[in-house]
């Protein structure tokens, strides 16, 4: 330590002690988060295997899969699968009926804006605000941008 400046530059020992205090603070923050935040242990576990995967455990290997209980009833899965296929066929039917209905009404199958019913049932998924740090890459609304075709009249 240079003479004449002991009050502005702490000694090595003082800095060492300060460093120890900082470590205690860091470790306390980790312990606090482990206790208070259920997800934190999962995220920390992921980090300890080198992953920043958020909110769920890193895909684990065979042990868990091997110990998974056998399906209680294979037939139940097959019934569910058949129901899913049936749901798809019903959706096809509804779409066809909708198209026929629009044709009979003399309107296009659907216009670009959602119908009031669709608007009512449509769920907003995300609405994040761009972060200040992100550098948006803007798409040029170029001259090449296509124009909308006129609606077909059935």
């Amino acid at each position, binding site marked *: 330590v240079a003479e004449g400046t002991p009050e502005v530059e702490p000694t090595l020992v003082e800095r060492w002690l300060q460093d120890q205090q900082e470590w205690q603070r860091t470790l306390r923050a980790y312990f606090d988060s482990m206790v208070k935040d259920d997800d934190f242990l999962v995220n920390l576990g992921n980090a300890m295997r080198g992953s*920043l995967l958020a909110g769920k455990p890193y895909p684990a290997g065979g042990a868990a899969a091997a110990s998974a209980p056998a399906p209680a009833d294979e037939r*139940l899965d097959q019934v569910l699968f058949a129901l899913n*296929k049936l749901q798809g066929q019903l959706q096809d039917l509804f779409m066809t009926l909708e198209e026929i209905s629009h044709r009979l009404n003399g309107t296009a199958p659907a216009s670009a804006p959602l119908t009031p019913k669709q608007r009512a049932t449509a769920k907003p*998924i995300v609405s994040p605000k761009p972060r200040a740090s992100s550098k948006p890459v803007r798409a040029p609304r170029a001259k*090449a941008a*296509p124009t909308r075709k006129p609606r077909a009249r059935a």
Partner: protein
Amino acid sequence: VRGADRGRELEALLELSRRARTKLDRLHDVLTSGGHYGKGATPAQLVYSENKLRLLRLVDDEGKPRVGPPVLFVPAPVSRYFIIDLLPGRSFAGYIAAAGFDVFIADFGEPTREDRFNDLEYYVEGLVRRSVRKVCALSGQPRINVVGYCLGGTLSLLYAALHPASVSRLVLLTTTVDGDVQGGIPWVAHRMGLAAESYENPRLVPAADIKSWFEMLAPGSNSVVGRINDLWDRLDDTPDRLRDVRTMASWVDDVVPASGRLLAELYGQFGPGKNALMRGTARVGERVVDLGALTMPVLAVSAEKDSIAPPAGVDAIRSIVPHAQVLRLPGGHVGIVAGRTAAALWQKTSEFLAATPG
């Protein structure tokens, strides 16, 4: 002299301690901060759902659908859809929407046990076909643009060949068509026992199995020590950059389980030595796929450093769809879509969709 050396050693030790602590503090901040991990970045509406599928339509800041030619993104059903819409300002789908298109994204969701029976026909003639149908209905257009990524490109290619009248332009991103080209995920999966997957008695292939195939492809990523070292080095980055890295990691590491029947069928038709697309023998259900029906403009994009879909296997589309434009971009399988240089792909795709007469 020895005292001075000791002093310098202690100083160096203190500096090491400080840097390590700073990294741990930064890691703590990252692990405790929120984000939109697992979700898209652009505001969207759910416009159709079926089983685990969600069809999302991007909307503007006022929540209104965009006006423009419709584009349907079809991502791979073995990973999360949000790679297409990763971050504000780094979103492929967001860029295409901003360029004047009405953008839809098919999110296949996470299969559960009963979905292990889902086959290629279920995806192509079921989920993809009905998604296209819904997009046509909502946009009022008889034909739409389809952009398929990776395995989603395979589904899109098969769909477009079976229903060419409903597709105005087709973009295939890092989609392998020649399964005999060595390397990539089909070969690794082959070596890891994909041939043993049963079509008749399928299992739900665990995410960990699929993850292990991808890890085999990325040198070092299957070593826990290597991954920890990488992460430790990354902790020198700024918190914002780390949150970006985390979003990407949440996509890369969050693979979903897959239908064993689908994988068995894909391997049986398109895997090494099978190569049904190149041989013209591909089938979806009972229907033989005629690639000659692909008369719409097609753009196929490969990535120079793609370890998942080797570029030669992607570019081979030239020999089965002669009019296809083939573009090779610098970067890797994920990087060209959502990396720092992804804007090149976005721009090329936008130009292709906009400039080609439908």
